[in-house]
């Protein structure tokens, strides 16, 4: 038992370090990708090719003055950024990064907690993200953050619904809530092939949940200055961004597990490459897509965003469920 605890803690720490590196280099990737899309080179002064930029940013933010405006609701104001980073870190614990490796005679599954209701857990945890934004906006006691927080609450709950429905097809096909089982079910057919509509809806809804362009209304710089984090500074400000990028990593990882076959190689003859590499490739592919979308498209207006979710995505995802059920039944009979 003790060995198991130690292994779990080590796994958790490795995973944490990995996530934090992903987050740090996610910010750099964002700026580099954006730079190249915009015909410039992006950050290039800190370290070779700007590789130390995230470190410099982090240090700078730690040593900035931490301003707590006079009219804020202090406990809530401090709680909000903590709540922003916690959900993705909680979520990362149930994501299987690979099948299992054998180390010193122990068979170690590459997941911290192989929970049999991982999908439910993920959605439960993900829905916490909205609290940080709403509380941050409310506690600031200032108009732009409040507007941002309200918008965000409405936006995130609307898309959460769609997000929940979009993966229903996958659950039906796999017949399990466990991410490990879902990945196993994709040995031959990735669910992106059988659930293309579900995958598209998932990506759209995830983008909206992550508050990224074209759905970044809560923080829409050009309208609400900074949105919910206008009053935040120093590391508290940075934590909202840490949370956003960590959420991106989680959303990409979950997307890879649910739709892109997790650690399964695309073709059987490629199976000499370790599963974890395949998983990371898929993770970064979705991550890059999110960046790509952000720097290519304009922003939707608030009412258009809400209409899009309720009037189009919701019926579409219901249709997807019914169609999946029908086809499964038909295939079963014949």
């Amino acid at each position: 038992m003790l060995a198991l605890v130690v292994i779990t803690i080590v796994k958790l720490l490795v995973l944490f370090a990995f996530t934090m590196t992903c987050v740090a280099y996610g910010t750099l990737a964002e700026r580099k990708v954006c730079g190249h899309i915009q015909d410039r080179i992006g950050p290039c002064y800190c370290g070779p090719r700007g590789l130390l930029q995230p470190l410099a940013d982090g240090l700078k933010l730690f040593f900035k003055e931490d301003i707590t405006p006079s009219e804020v609701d202090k406990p809530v104001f401090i709680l909000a950024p903590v709540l922003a980073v916690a959900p993705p870190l909680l979520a990362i614990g149930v994501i299987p990064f690979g099948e299992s490796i054998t180390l010193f005679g122990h068979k170690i599954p590459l997941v911290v907690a192989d929970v049999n209701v991982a999908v439910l857990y993920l959605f439960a945890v993900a829905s916490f993200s909205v609290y940080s934004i709403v509380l941050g906006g409310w506690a600031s006691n200032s108009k732009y953050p409040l507007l941002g927080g309200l918008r965000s609450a409405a936006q995130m709950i609307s898309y959460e619904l769609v997000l929940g429905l979009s993966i229903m097809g996958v659950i039906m096909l796999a017949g399990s809530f466990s991410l490990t089982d879902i990945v196993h079910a994709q040995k031959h057919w990735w669910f992106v092939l059988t659930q293309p509509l579900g995958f598209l809806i998932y990506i759209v809804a995830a983008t909206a949940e992550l508050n990224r362009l074209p759905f970044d209304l809560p923080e829409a710089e050009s309208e609400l200055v900074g949105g919910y984090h206008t009053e935040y500074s120093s590391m508290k400000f940075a934590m909202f961004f840490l949370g956003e990028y960590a959420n991106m990593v989680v959303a990409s990882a979950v997307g890879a597990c649910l739709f892109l076959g997790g650690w399964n190689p695309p073709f059987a003859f490629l199976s000499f490459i370790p599963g974890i590499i395949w998983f990371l490739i898929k993770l970064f592919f979705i991550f890059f897509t999110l960046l790509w979308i952000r720097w290519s498209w304009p922003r939707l207006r608030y009412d258009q965003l809400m209409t899009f979710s309720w009037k189009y995505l919701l019926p579409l995802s219901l249709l997807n469920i019914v169609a999946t059920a029908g086809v499964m039944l038909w295939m079963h009979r014949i």
Partner: protein
Amino acid sequence: MDEIRGLVVTEEGLVEQDLMRDTLTKEMWVNMGPQHPSTHGVLRVVLALEGERIVDTEIYIGYLHRGFEKFAESKTYPQFLPITDRLDYISAHAMNYGYVLAVEKLMGIEVPLRAKYIRTLMAELTRISSHLLWLATHALDIGAMTVFLYCFREREMILDLFEMVCGARLTTSYFRIGGVANDLPDGFIEKCREFCNIFPQKAKDYDDLILKNRIWLARTINVANISGEEGLNLGLSGPSIRGSGVKWDIRVSEPYGVYDKVEWEMAVEDGCDVYARYLVRLKEMRESCKICQQCLDFLEKDDSGEFRAKVPKVIKPPEGEAYACVEAPKGELGFYIVSDGSTKPYRLKIRAPSFANLMSLPKMVEGALVADVIAAIGSIDVVLGEVDR
């Protein structure tokens, strides 16, 4: 909702008041600006919001007021010229143009043809650069960040051209009463030609990015509508009014420079919305490019070298008054000068296009959403230097 009166415990004891008073959703007053990323400078718009919808708009200006009109009264005529640069600081040539035209009209100076061509060329390059900056920031406001740097890439080329002719990139002061400061430098025509040749291709890049983008269309079509008649009543001019189907361009109605000698088309759209104004400006950039090509054709062949008319050393217009206007990138720019026969203007009035255009903002955003205000401000292309003067 009806009033429900009852006793309420307050700091002053029991007071009878309307119990529903605090339960009603009241509008929220929000300051947008002066320190706001998309009010294009120090514009302050106070919005009354009901949820996301705007019920009232008030515009406060003057944060960049520098008293140019009064200032002019203590400067000689040539001394005031560099100050006009600071009106619409991103299209300095056009500002110079309006001022020198007014002084020339006052004094009855005839400008040599070559100078007219050079001026027209500069004015049109300015129009392209101003519209590029507009497109960049407008797209940025709506969230399409990538367009920004693409536009700046080409704008940089125009600024390089400006640097070649007069050494300055932004506040150029290249025009002089009676002509321009100096003739075009060697190599300018080739470099300018190069720009004019590649520009249509680059303009296509911007189209590829947003012209048919569904989100862009959703954000601009039927947003911030203003009919041609309303626009005229509010003094809207330039590309903004041409987007409402009004065929009015100073370059056509009162040709100055060589606009009557070159071939070009006025850009007019009937949409009355942000998208129409966007299309008008896109077309104008292309037309400007055509005008530049024709100016270059002339300047290449012409070897008169007359870039300035003979003007007296001391500019001393006769007693009288004159109004001259040009089609600046933002709209009708007019200078009204009253001279008392001395070396300084007795009174100088500037009809700044941005100032007049801004006044139609409340009309445009009546009942719109917060995001539409941003689109509307972007679409009328205000420069606060010109609004506040």
